[in-house]
């Protein structure tokens, strides 16, 4: 398996830099991918990111596959003006809760901050198939399904 590198490692730093470049280049796009727009805000030509950094691609997949409970999401608190980061409860009827006080002025920056938060929060071996946990008999394992 490919571990999730520790945040202080050179691998992590490379991924952080690449991720940030991609996210910054997506500002203005009504959508988002961890890919680099040749012209900022224009998806005509996109390169790098998940298409060229294999480790970043795999690490992002593992982060994205986390089940709903405790998962980080972005919440738009003022249309086209303000966004915040929240965490899902995983319980029907219990709404997400904000986890930081930071208010973003664009919808792309929280994507990068969530990547940084996850690098801190996830164990190096998180998502390894052999580390299935309680619940694996009833599809509640570490790889989520809809």
């Amino acid at each position: 398996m490919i571990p999730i590198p520790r945040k202080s490692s050179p691998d992590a730093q490379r991924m952080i830099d690449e991720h940030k470049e991609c996210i910054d280049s997506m500002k203005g796009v009504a959508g988002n991918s961890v890919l680099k727009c040749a012209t900022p805000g224009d998806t005509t030509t996109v390169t790098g990111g998940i298409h060229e950094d294999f480790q970043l691609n795999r690490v992002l997949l593992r982060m994205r596959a986390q089940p709903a409970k405790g998962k980080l999401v972005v919440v738009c608190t003022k249309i086209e003006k303000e966004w915040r980061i929240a965490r899902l409860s995983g319980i029907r009827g219990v709404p997400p809760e904000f986890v930081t006080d930071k208010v973003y002025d664009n919808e792309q920056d929280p994507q990068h901050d969530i990547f940084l938060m996850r690098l801190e929060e996830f164990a190096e071996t998180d998502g390894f198939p052999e580390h299935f946990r309680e619940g694996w008999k009833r599809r509640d394992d570490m790889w989520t399904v809809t």
Partner: protein
Amino acid sequence: MTWMKITGYADKFSVHPGDTIKFLVNCDGPAEYQAEIVKMIHADTNPRGPGFIEESIKASCDGTYKGMKQEIYSGSYGFVVDKPQFCVESVTLQCWIWPTTPKTHPKYWKHGAQGLVTKWHDGKGYGLFINEDGCVEFRINDQVISTGAPLRDHAWHFVAASFDAKTGEAVLYHEPQIVYALDPEIEPVTKKLATKLAYTPGTPTVIAGYCGALSDAPQAKASMPAGTLIKGHYNGKIDSPRIANRALSRLEIETMKLGAQPGLSERRNSGPTGKLSEAIVASWDFSDGINTLAGKDKGPYLFHATIVNCPTRAMTGYNWEGQVFDWKTAPEQYGAIHFHDDDIDDARWATSFEWTVPKGTSSKFYAAKLTSKDGGEDYIPFWVVPRVGEETAKIAFMVPTISYMAYANEHLANNAGGAELLVYRVPIMQQQNMFLSEHREYGGSIYDTHTDGSGLCLSSRLRPILSIRPKYDHFLAQAPWQYPADLHMIYWLEKKGYEYDIITDEDVTYDGLARLEKYNVIITGSHPEHNSGPQLDALHNYMQRGGRFMYMGADGWYWVHSYHPGYDGLGRGIVTEMRRCESGIRTWRADPGEYYHQGTGELGGMWRFRGRYLHTIAGTGMSSEGFDISTYYSRTPESNDERVAWAFEGITYDEKLGNFGLVGGGAAGTELDIVDTMLGSPPHTLVVATSAGRHTEGYLLVMEDYGFNQQGLDGTQHPRVRSDIAYHETPNGGASFAFSSIAFCGALPWNNGDNNISKLVGNVLNRFMKDAPLPMPSPAAIVHRGRADYDQPMNKARK
């Protein structure tokens, strides 16, 4: 943080000039609110587009209204109003159950005891329950006995209980139908109770819940029966509930499993035996009337239960053998109803105000805009639709209202961890999602699972649908989706000065060809995925007779839908039904034997597997989806064919088509359709532009297009992950243009509508809206064509 103090809905989606539409508003907090009817032009707030545009039309109902809180009492159940025959001294209750959430998390939105068969309120009466610990419980007044044996979820159990008033003896039986090797034996529980059954007047008999409160509050009128608030909603199936007026022996209980059985005596009296005939109070048989809102009582009193909030029927019963799969063939194996604590068929709110649409009102998108001084805001969209025969334009825009209902109040970003894998970024939730995450009573979409995890296959429009809203970006696109995305097209029609009428899916479903035939061209929405059979029939009949069709999106004509006939008395298209069967993109999967609609009895699932290929409607069909970013199209050599070259006047061959837009940043994105003559695209179809080779890894081939899993299915690798813009002629001077991408319309408003996508669409519409049949192509184009030997230019180039 408080989200959405004002919410509301209308009693109609489409309203004719001269008719009245009612608005039903919940205003939770503000003492008053302002209402104003507005014409909707553009709903997308993206600063790179024209921005939000609405126009006040000065309607007679505009004004200030007193705010009133209105509540939704969701959760399905059956009830029979208070009747003396239920007020027995001794009693036996029995039924089969298949519970889905016998035990819930303490923070679960409806945590607590669940009622199975009850005539119980506030410590008086009797009832079979599941208690907080997930065990069967029998209540006689305030006395309780329980087995102490937790129910296995998703498994059938037979449960019964009796109380003998003379001896005071109560017996509770819990007999699992599935018994595994290491399961403990569950013995009947017996207890002497020192109590006489007493009843609170007005307490109904309830199946799948119990009488929680009798209330005079104005909001409580929205409950059924009005003023009676049902609590303890049960999640799971119930089959063959019975009530008898004395304590039956275990043998008699076994015999009562047979039900009323009037055929066992030549006198046709109820009861599997003469003695039991005298004891039956009610013996419900849910296999009779599966397509209705009644639970039939086959006992002597005909205490048919009113089924509230549309639980799922046509569900396999405890006795389903796995030999028949259509409930119509063996209804006796489909005697189960699956109740859910979040089912909702009608919010039943009080009317807040109404508007009689003046004759001559233009057929357009409208909304009741509701605002409060403290910043509260909601919009209730509706459409003014001309009566058949009173069409006012050559162009009609067909609003995909069934698809809107399918997506109504969708919860995926909140419920489904997999949402992030799907969209390939962190989902962004909006105020509507935050409100719904807390207010489960507003019900979910057909993309969601119920709160008990089972598939949600029925959706009502008589409730606030917060996903059909302007200024709403959907997590799938991080941009408008469905309703607000369709307004990209409306903005363009307005900007370019076209005269157009509005029609909806429900109008076409009920009116058939008559609804379409006066128009020269029908324009679809960006994502008409969910369709009724009569609607598809009408579209084919229209195109067969020379009608012209512009398919402005993708993933259309995919799922089988039907309107539930049980709601016809309330208006058109109140509840739509869909089952997610063995293939297609499914956020949940129907269980075996549960593929047939409860309303119409037709086989659900994809139209493709009913022999009605998606590609037959407009010429292209769904092949892939991905939601991170969009891309652009290039023209193909076929675009120079004289049959279609007119569409590209003013567009050079090498131009990038749609490398801009308000959905994903390009015209080709989110969900994509392609030409496939083996799946119903006519072999004379011309592919005029394609996005092949430009999609990201986030785009994946649809599962119905491959037989087994393998690598190489994503947008960077698989040739079917692309969008084809395609054209074909239909008989009698008709034609279809398929633009084949959900993101496509998002490119139209770019640069205020001045761009090459706008040019292409304008060229097509100008030709298609003409009165006379389209000119025939040159005789050289009339040739024999096969299906499999159709070869696209790109393939030819590769050879």
